[in-house]
């Protein structure tokens, strides 16, 4: 009751003061439109406070419905799409605009200007005719899903010394690969029926590219924030402040560090890594030391730290700006070829202006902002020296930016575009340089579209971003989209990959960061070397894109930020004022930071500024950080006023009635996006009931802290944490359904389940993602008991009848392809009708008359699937007609293994990029589980099939229930997967009452997970024991088992590792040519190696003859002729039937002996290097 009282008091407060800012705050000093905006939103708040007051006493509102609404609007890969759309709509125009003029060096009046740029419809040009294409077509026929980049140009056409300006529209300068489901994609905005018509799966997330028929994802790249001050220690333990500046023009890294109590600047362009900072400041016009000290702060401790640096500067006798610049001039790295004319002002000033802290712009040589920036850096560094808490954490997610495909492609495009422009310039200069020009000169003819097209295609298909202009060499940025299962695809597009090398043995970046709560999944990371470095996005994460800065800056000034220009050095750090830093730029200071921040947030909630702008008041640093840059991770949260959620029952009702969308929630200021930094200014309650008056926000749903892959696990919060991580890795290997169009695809390898099921125990994430429609597993009735001894070490015992009826049955598709090559002499491979009377006809039975294997035929090893012939002569001059005799057979022979029958599923004909006929065969195999196949539940509990037992031998209950598989109970105690047990209980209750039960993470309080109590209740109602145990009889004896058996359905996944693909043994077989030893590896039918350790065992055991047999007889025995005199190897003369020593020139002292061929090889190789090994023989 006390809590209730509290609650009503709270709402009472609310009535009195519906506006949430500080009581003493007056109306903000803002002008014109902004004021109107602010008033607007005040009104709105008042209205909300009054209209929903009645509901506020009620219980917590179920906000779950927001989630499907959120995901419906954006899908799971919104970040990729947003970023690509931003590039296509905005960024590309900026890039072209920045380099819009191509001018001839010889005649500047001849020019070409880009007026506009846009991306057209995805299409392909065949024989100069443009055809529109759709993604599935590209997948099937190995095309690139790309659209032309169209530009409008204005240029000079010169004919007969007459120059005339011309305009041309829709000139193609290249082809841009299009991200699926982006604005430019044909799939954008299509409904399910239309998608089906295009051969596309409606559940497919998009967000990837199709390059030459393969799907490529550009992974999200994680890197340190650009343009931000980071305080860190270097290897020697010195504290430094570094800024990685990145502007359109330059990219540089500036480090200010404290070494031997003195402060230095480190900049790559200078020869020494130690430039005294005072010199730099003086060079920028800060000649007064007093001003420097004032700028850093008047605290005597700062002064004391500055003193050695000041002294050093004085020792160098540098007092004025000129002296400082002269000093710097000596330190500048000399270019190897001094081609650039020496600038008047000197290179040093240029460097200070353009390279040093490039993110701080210098207008009209006013270096003051840069000086202040340096002062702020030094101040932060000194703070860190005085107080270690002020150090920045590089692993803090707020200091990270995620680079998405749009940004990466824009970098690439910028580079290629500039390359193209310079190439064009080069060619026209060459052309105009010629004296005798007779023909008409048309500038537009010289735009080369191949540079951009090929560059983009090559980079995306190799994944190597080599952008020399930006000194960027990164490998593995794009990967082939994992299509092993639906969930592996989802996991792949949300993956975040790190920038630094993986081999380093540091734990910091690998550790779970508290700040990744809600942003990055805590479970989903690979094991092994990339553990903790490769991450996955959480369910509700959004990654921002860049936003226009200009209006935001002027808004800040409107809201009372005092411009830096107007401030004296002394005023910079007055105790109660906060610096306002916008995207890493110091705008000025504000005397009432909280008031300013509240104002900004109000405007954001009112929708007057972008919803992703973050406002963060850093009390410790006395700064207000405003960020609108791209790559920040953020997530939506419900806004609470003094602990009362703004979302009321009425809003949720409107949502379920369909009159309110997620965007309305944002616009009405009920929900807002917070980034990691701003979260520090918020007090977020997990549930509405836990909110206190200080609470500012409430989580939407706690299970959204997990990602897509971890969201499949039922009751993950009851499991030991590494088990969830293991499941995240295994869920991606599970077989099941891939997409609705899975049977129309032509993947190189495809695993499908014959009867995939939807899990009996679902989670909300499963439904949101669509795993219930494209499942990868089956609900198996599992008995947890020991049986037969073939279940040790996690092996499972399977019921043969269950397998007969289709449990775990899977289909494997493999693609084989064959290309009809064309040759230089105008000949080409051909496919001919099989000759049914030939010797080889036995292996050509599956061929149709067209010489290709027929779909539906069973294909056996050594069967021909393409009856291809190649011309014998392929070089030289073109031949007109060639007879049949000029061809030799070049049949494609199937090399599968015996075992399950293999069937030709589909045959597809297409042309490849060289216009050759390309035939693709899809081979199908249906496999039932066998001994050694790998299975796993959804709790990181993998196991192989240990034995398969007849149903009548299986235990049964008196209801007639007989388990599908038996799992050993020893799997539980050490793994502590309690979630699996609850899944079993919930599944059992589910089947018996006919309702799918839920097991969402942390779902018990909010009703998204069934409680064990309720499940037990259901079990009892259905006549089962509350604890899920059953009374079973032994199937072998018919006697009751001694214990009650924990039995019920658990969702089991069949993993892609199957014995059939791995099983290998060999007797005699192929050998390596060089050493005559058996080959290695299953693919080459290789031998099984007796390695060093095995050899050691045999030596220890004394089995010398076995070693002899393994290492020599069964490997590479060789008979050699050895000369007893010189000890060299001779040869066997077949005519004389005797061995002869070639150095002694006779056969008198020859002995024949056996040694490994590898040994003989070694001897000869040594001889070739002028080392003579001699064999000294003795009688044995």
């Amino acid at each position, binding site marked *: 009751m006390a809590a209730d009282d509290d609650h009503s008091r709270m709402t009472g407060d609310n009535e009195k003061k519906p506006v949430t800012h500080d009581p003493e705050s007056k109306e903000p000093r803002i002008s014109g439109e902004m004021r109107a905006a602010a008033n607007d939103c005040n009104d709105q708040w008042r209205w909300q406070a009054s209209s929903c007051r009645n509901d506020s006493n009620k219980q917590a509102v179920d906000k779950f419905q927001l989630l499907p609404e959120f995901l419906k609007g954006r899908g799971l890969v919104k970040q990729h799409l947003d970023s690509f759309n931003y590039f296509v709509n905005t960024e590309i125009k900026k890039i072209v605009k920045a380099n819009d003029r191509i001018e001839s060096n010889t005649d500047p009046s001849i020019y070409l200007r880009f007026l506009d740029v846009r991306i057209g419809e995805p299409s392909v040009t065949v024989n100069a005719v443009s055809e529109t294409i759709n993604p599935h077509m590209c997948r099937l026929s190995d095309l690139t899903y790309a659209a032309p980049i169209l530009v409008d140009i204005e240029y000079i056409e010169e004919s007969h010394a007459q120059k005339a300006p011309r305009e041309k529209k829709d000139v193609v300068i290249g082809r841009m690969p299009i991200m699926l489901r982006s604005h430019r994609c044909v799939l954008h905005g299509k409904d399910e029926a239309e998608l089906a018509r295009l051969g596309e799966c409606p559940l497919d997330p998009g967000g990837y590219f199709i390059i030459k028929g393969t799907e490529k994802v550009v992974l999200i790249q994680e890197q340190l924030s650009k343009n931000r001050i980071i305080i860190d220690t270097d290897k020697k333990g010195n504290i430094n402040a570094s800024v990685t500046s990145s502007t359109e023009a330059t990219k540089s890294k500036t480090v200010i560090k404290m070494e031997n109590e003195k402060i230095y600047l480190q900049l790559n362009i200078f020869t020494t890594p130690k430039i005294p900072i005072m010199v730099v400041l003086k060079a920028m016009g800060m000649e007064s030391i007093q001003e420097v000290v004032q700028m850093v702060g008047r605290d005597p401790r700062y002064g004391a730290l500055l003193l050695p640096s000041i002294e050093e500067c004085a020792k160098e006798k540098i007092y004025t700006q000129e002296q400082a610049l002269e000093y710097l001039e000596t330190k500048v790295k000399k270019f190897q070829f001094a081609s650039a004319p020496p600038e008047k002002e000197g290179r040093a000033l240029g460097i200070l202006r353009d390279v040093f802290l490039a993110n701080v712009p210098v207008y009209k040589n006013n270096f003051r902002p840069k000086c202040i920036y340096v002062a702020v850096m030094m101040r932060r560094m000194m703070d860190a020296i005085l107080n270690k808490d002020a150090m920045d954490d590089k692993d803090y997610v707020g200091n990270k930016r995620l680079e998405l495909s749009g940004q990466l492609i824009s970098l690439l495009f910028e580079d290629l575009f500039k390359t193209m422009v310079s190439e064009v310039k080069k060619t026209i200069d060459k052309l105009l340089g010629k004296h005798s020009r007779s023909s008409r000169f048309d500038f537009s003819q010289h735009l080369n579209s191949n540079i951009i097209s090929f560059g983009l295609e090559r980079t995306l298909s190799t994944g190597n971003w080599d952008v020399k202009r930006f000194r960027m060499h990164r490998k593995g940025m794009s990967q082939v989209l994992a299509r092993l299962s639906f969930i592996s695809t989802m996991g792949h597009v949300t993956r975040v990959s790190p920038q630094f090398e993986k081999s380093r043995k540091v734990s910091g970046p690998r550790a779970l960061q508290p700040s990744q709560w809600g942003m990055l999944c805590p479970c989903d990371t690979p094991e092994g070397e990339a553990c903790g470095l490769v991450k996955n996005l959480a369910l509700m994460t959004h990654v921002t894109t860049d936003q226009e800065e200009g209006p935001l800056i002027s808004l800040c000034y409107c809201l009372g930020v005092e411009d830096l220009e107007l401030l004296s050095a002394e005023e910079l750090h007055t105790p109660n004022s906060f610096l306002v830093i916008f995207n890493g730029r110091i705008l000025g200071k504000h005397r009432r930071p909280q008031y300013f921040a509240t104002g900004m947030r109000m405007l954001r909630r009112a929708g007057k500024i972008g919803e992703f702008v973050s406002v963060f008041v850093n009390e410790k640093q006395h700064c207000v950080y405003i960020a609108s840059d791209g790559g920040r991770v953020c997530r939506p949260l419900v806004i609470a006023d003094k602990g009362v959620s703004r979302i009321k029952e009425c809003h949720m009702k409107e949502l379920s009635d369909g009159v309110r969308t997620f965007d309305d929630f944002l616009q009405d200021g009920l929900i807002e996006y917070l980034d990691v930094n701003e979260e520090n200014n918020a007090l977020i309650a997990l549930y509405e009931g836990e909110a206190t008056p200080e609470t500012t926000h409430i989580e939407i749903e706690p299970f959204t802290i997990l990602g897509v892959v971890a969201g499949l696990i039922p009751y993950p919060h009851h499991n030991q944490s590494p088990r969830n991580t293991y499941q995240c890795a295994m869920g991606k290997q599970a077989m099941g359904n891939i997409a609705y169009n899975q049977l129309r695809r032509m993947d190189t390898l495809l695993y499908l389940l014959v009867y995939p099921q939807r899990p009996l125990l679902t989670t909300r994430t499963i439904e949101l993602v669509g795993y219930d429609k494209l499942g990868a597993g089956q609900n198996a009735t599992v008995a947890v008991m020991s049986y037969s001894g073939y279940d040790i070490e996690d092996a499972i015992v399977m019921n043969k009848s269950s397998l007969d009826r289709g449990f775990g049955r899977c289909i494997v598709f493999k693609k084989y392809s064959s290309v009809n090559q064309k040759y230089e002499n105008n000949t080409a491979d051909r496919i001919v009708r099989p000759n049914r009377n030939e010797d080889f006809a036995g292996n050509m039975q599956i061929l149709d008359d067209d010489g290709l294997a027929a779909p*539906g035929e069973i294909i056996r090893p050594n069967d021909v699937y393409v009856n291809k012939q190649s011309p014998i002569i392929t070089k030289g001059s073109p031949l007109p007609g060639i007879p049949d005799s000029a061809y030799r057979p070049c049949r494609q022979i199937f090399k599968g293994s015996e075992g399950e029958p293999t069937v030709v599923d589909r045959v597809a004909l297409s042309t490849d990029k060289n216009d050759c006929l390309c035939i693709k065969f899809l081979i199908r195999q249906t496999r039932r589980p066998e001994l050694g196949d790998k299975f796993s539940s959804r709790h990181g509990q993998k196991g192989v099939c240990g034995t398969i037992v007849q149903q009548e031998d299986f235990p049964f209950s*008196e*209801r*007639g229930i007989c388990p599908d598989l038996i799992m050993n109970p020893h799997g539980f105690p050490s793994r502590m997967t309690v979630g699996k047990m609850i899944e079993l209980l919930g599944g059992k209750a589910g089947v018996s009452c006919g309702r799918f039960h839920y097991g969402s993470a942390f779902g018990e309080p909010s009703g998204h997970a069934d409680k064990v109590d309720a499940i037990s209740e259901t079990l009892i109602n259905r006549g089962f*024991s509350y604890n899920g145990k059953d009374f079973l009889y032994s199937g072998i004896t*018919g006697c*009751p088992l001694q214990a009650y058996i924990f039995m019920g359905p658990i969702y089991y996944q069949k993993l892609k590792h199957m014995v059939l693909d791995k099983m290998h043994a060999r007797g005699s077989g192929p050998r390596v040519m060089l050493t005559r030893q058996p080959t290695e590896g299953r693919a080459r039918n290789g031998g099984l190696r007796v390695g060093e350790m095995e050899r050691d065992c045999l030596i220890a055991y004394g089995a010398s003859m076995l070693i002899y047999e393994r290492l020599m007889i069964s490997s590479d025995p060789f008979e050699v002729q050895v000369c007893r005199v010189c000890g060299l190897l001779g040869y066997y003369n077949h005519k004389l039937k005797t061995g002869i020593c070639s150095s002694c020139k006779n056969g008198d002292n020859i002995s024949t002996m056996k040694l490994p061929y590898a040994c003989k090889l070694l001897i000869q190789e040594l001889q070739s290097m002028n080392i003579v090994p001699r064999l000294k023989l003795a009688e044995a």
Partner: protein
Amino acid sequence: MEGSSYQRFPKVKIRELRDDYAKFELRDTDASMANALRRVMIAEVPTIAIDLVEIEVNSSVLNDEFIAHRLGLIPLTSERAMSMRFSRDCDACDGDGQCEFCSVEFHLRAKCHSDQTLDVTSKDLYSSDHTVVPVDFSDSAAASGEALDTKGIIIVKLRRGQELRLRAIARKGIGKDHAKWSPAATVTFMYEPNIHINEDLMETLTLEEKRTWVESCPTRVFELDPVTHQVMVVDPEAYTYDDEVIKKAEAMGKAGLVDITAKEDSFIFTVESTGAIKASQLILNAIDILKQKLDAVRLSDDTVEADDQFGELGAHMRGG
């Protein structure tokens, strides 16, 4: 015990008998006998099921193996199965569907001409032998008042233009080889419980205690008489040997309130058939086969040799 025989004469009492369901008591025998009967019913009573499929045209979404697997699992009426030959033992033929002793041929032709999805069901299978046809559940469905339009077992769904044409051969087989030949959907038995309530102790309980005790049993075994307030055993067979009532009694401090033991020589069987043969026939066939198996043991040379060693037991096996 000199001269006493191990031989017992089991009794069967049928409680309930429908075409696809039987419930009976088996008394005066032990678990080995009951279990042998259960195992034979599951694994060794022969039925007929589709074993070989020749596909002529298949343009459906499911691939050939998939359809063949589904066809195999369709139960076929197999009254004739006991008299048929296994195709591997059939000397008269090579098991290609032409031989009436060992195989039955089926044809399926379906093509969708309309815009509506066409369900290809087990009713579309045409048999060459009218005694072996896919099991028809429409009668039982009609009897139980369910929807009348039960169309059989769906094999595949076709959309416009898709076609399925195939020839299938059904053969005799047993459940041990493949579950499709198992005539039993469920065969299970339980020991008959012997429930004895200690009336004296029960009388010491209050009405409320009695009620909670009765309700502690997850199945309705006990009931409280509304008039006399006495606890009665209403359905001993509903007892699942869960020990809940015993634990409850102990928790109430009345250990020994009820005594439940399993009768070692009395079994209650539940048999559900797939429809391939009638449940009653399934039991009879199982007994026949069990007899044959015992005969095989009894008549084998090994048994005669072992006769001296086993003495009376050997004689017993020979029917002495």
